[in-house]
């Protein structure tokens, strides 16, 4: 049963990672708001299914909807939030400006959720969605966990097929061309903002779906369950697997997540230092991010060539990064332009 739980969690994160990879891997926008989308997906799934709040507990809506309908509505709510944040952040801002804006927006909302209890019960969070459908399907506890794992894996497979198809579609190719050179793509008549915006909404929808499944998996959610630091695990997994390659991303999540859990499970955890194991895990994730970026930024499975005009891209990804003499950064942004990118905001 231990393994069922580990694999279920990894599969949920893989769905989130697929969504994040569309935004970062294809469209090239490093986003720090996605942890908020997963959280909102979870919260909405709870408040739409667990009924009216009882005395000290407070939250909005308190519906008794069927689970599937609740999941659809939760994803819709997440897409709405992403539509607002994306409209603000994607219009003129890029790179670190984009990253900081997304982080600022979601941090503000997170603080609001923590302190304004009528919304989602503040720090204590919401709970009460225990194994929906277990009695209807007449399953034992363990049987239910296995069936749920199966459902999550099927959803992951469907998400993968959809993303894979999109990756090879004109839309996927357009996103990559925008990532490689925004101005060239615009000069060829691509609507840059619209392309990035649609990618962002699609990615956020997958994050909301992951959040909804996460809610069912852990059956309780509060603000400390999920923080920006957790998002870095997903980024580490994408880096390891290979940015822009859906199969690589899924492999990366399973390798990183299960690898970390297994590595730190057998460590001696002194009773006086209960934080030792989790802290060590975070240190390993930090090291993984830094080392992958330094030595193998394309990941273990690099973005697959064979798409239209992607040969040049693959060659670029294979080329060793910036030599000391000439500061020509990879990713096709000349040094002078990089400075301009910083000033891009007012445009």
């Amino acid at each position, binding site marked *: 049963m231990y393994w069922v739980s580990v694999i279920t969690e990894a599969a949920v994160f893989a769905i989130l990672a697929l969504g994040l990879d569309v935004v970062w891997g294809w469209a090239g926008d*490093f986003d720090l708001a996605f942890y908020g989308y997963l959280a909102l997906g979870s919260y909405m799934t709870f408040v739409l299914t667990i009924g009216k709040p009882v005395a000290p507990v407070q939250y909005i809506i308190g519906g008794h909807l069927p689970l599937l309908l609740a999941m659809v509505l939760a994803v819709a709510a997440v897409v709405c939030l992403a539509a607002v944040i994306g409209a*603000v952040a994607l219009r*003129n*801002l*890029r*790179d*670190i*400006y984009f*990253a*900081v*804006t997304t*982080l*600022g*927006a979601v*941090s*503000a909302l997170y*603080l*609001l959720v923590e*302190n304004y209890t009528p919304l989602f019960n503040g720090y204590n969070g919401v709970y009460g969605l225990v194994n929906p459908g277990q009695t209807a399907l007449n399953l034992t506890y363990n049987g239910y966990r296995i069936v749920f794992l199966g459902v999550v894996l099927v959803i992951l497979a469907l998400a993968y097929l959809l993303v894979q198809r999109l990756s090879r579609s004109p839309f996927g190719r357009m996103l990559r061309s925008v990532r490689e050179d*925004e*101005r060239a793509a*615009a000069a060829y008549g691509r609507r840059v903002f619209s392309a990035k915006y649609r990618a962002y909404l699609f990615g956020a929808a997958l994050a909301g779906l992951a959040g909804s499944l996460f809610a069912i998996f852990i059956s309780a959610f509060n603000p400390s369950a999920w923080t920006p*630091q957790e998002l*870095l695990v997903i*980024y*580490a997994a994408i880096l390891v697997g290979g940015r822009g390659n859906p199969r690589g991303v899924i492999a990366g999540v399973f390798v990183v997540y299960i690898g970390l859990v297994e590595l730190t499970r057998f460590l001696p955890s002194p009773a006086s*230092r209960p*934080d030792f194991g989790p*802290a*060590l895990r*975070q*240190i390993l*994730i*930090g*090291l*993984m*991010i*830094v080392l992958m*970026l*330094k030595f193998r*930024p394309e990941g273990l499975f690099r973005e697959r060539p064979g798409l239209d005009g992607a040969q040049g891209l693959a060659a670029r990804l294979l080329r060793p*990064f*910036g*030599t*000391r003499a*000439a*500061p020509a*950064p*990879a*990713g096709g*942004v000349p040094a002078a332009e*990089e400075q*301009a*990118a*910083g*000033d*891009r*905001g*007012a*445009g």
Partner: protein
Amino acid sequence: MTTFLVTIGIGLSTAAILALSAVAFTLEYAVSRVANFAHGEFLTIGAYAAYSGQHIFHQSVAAAAVIAAVAGMLAGLALNAGLIEQFRGRNSITIFIATLGAALIVENVLIIVYGAASVSYSFGQGRLHHVGPFLWTTTDLEVIFSALAVAGLIYLLLQRTRFGKAVRAVSQDRALAQVSGIPARRVIMQTWALAGAVSGFAGFVLADTIGTFGPLLGFNFLLLTITATVAGGLGRPYATLGGALIVGLVIQISGTYTSSAYQLVFAFLLLVLLMLFRPNGVFVRRSATEVRA
């Protein structure tokens, strides 16, 4: 009215700490073109170094401040040599993500060394002082005056010394500075040492003002620092001081008239609004180079 003035007073003390942290952040950006997400860890390291050292020097606030600054300086040097220079020539977002990774590492090393629970100094806050219309504790006064002194020193350093000239040259164009005979590498290293020392000191005064702190002290302060930096204009040290003043006052005033729990909500909303309407700082009317992809 009295409430308002007291609020302004506390806002000034917050702004002073913010100014120290934001000036350091903007100096790092100016010479290395890096938005350093591990900047908050300099503050945390400074705060914890002072915590470890406070008993050695018999509760001397000055000694603790020096220890914090030295620890911050070492952290600045280490990050520059170990990470920033290693990633030289890579695009800005790659380095940004690498510093995020570094922040995660430092944060959790501190958790392992000091534990995740909050700690506090044993210095007193001192008594209350009425200065004109304002009401400050001794600590507040120390913070404001030391921030003014540090800001003044940085101004003199940048405007009146060969080092300052070199820093300004490198921040304009590293390659050009190099061929003009400026040892760019060394200047950048010294700038990081300076930024680290200022941040370490800021971390100590921040921790002392708040009372208790944990391993997330700096990371939680980072987004505020960035808000102040953006308000001033990234890479512009003097304007950053103005940015810090704006953010410090916005936090305290909004916090007093709603609830202190929401003051950061207002700060981050301000960040988003700045990004929307004034990404190059409130002191610039229009960007000189308008780039629209």
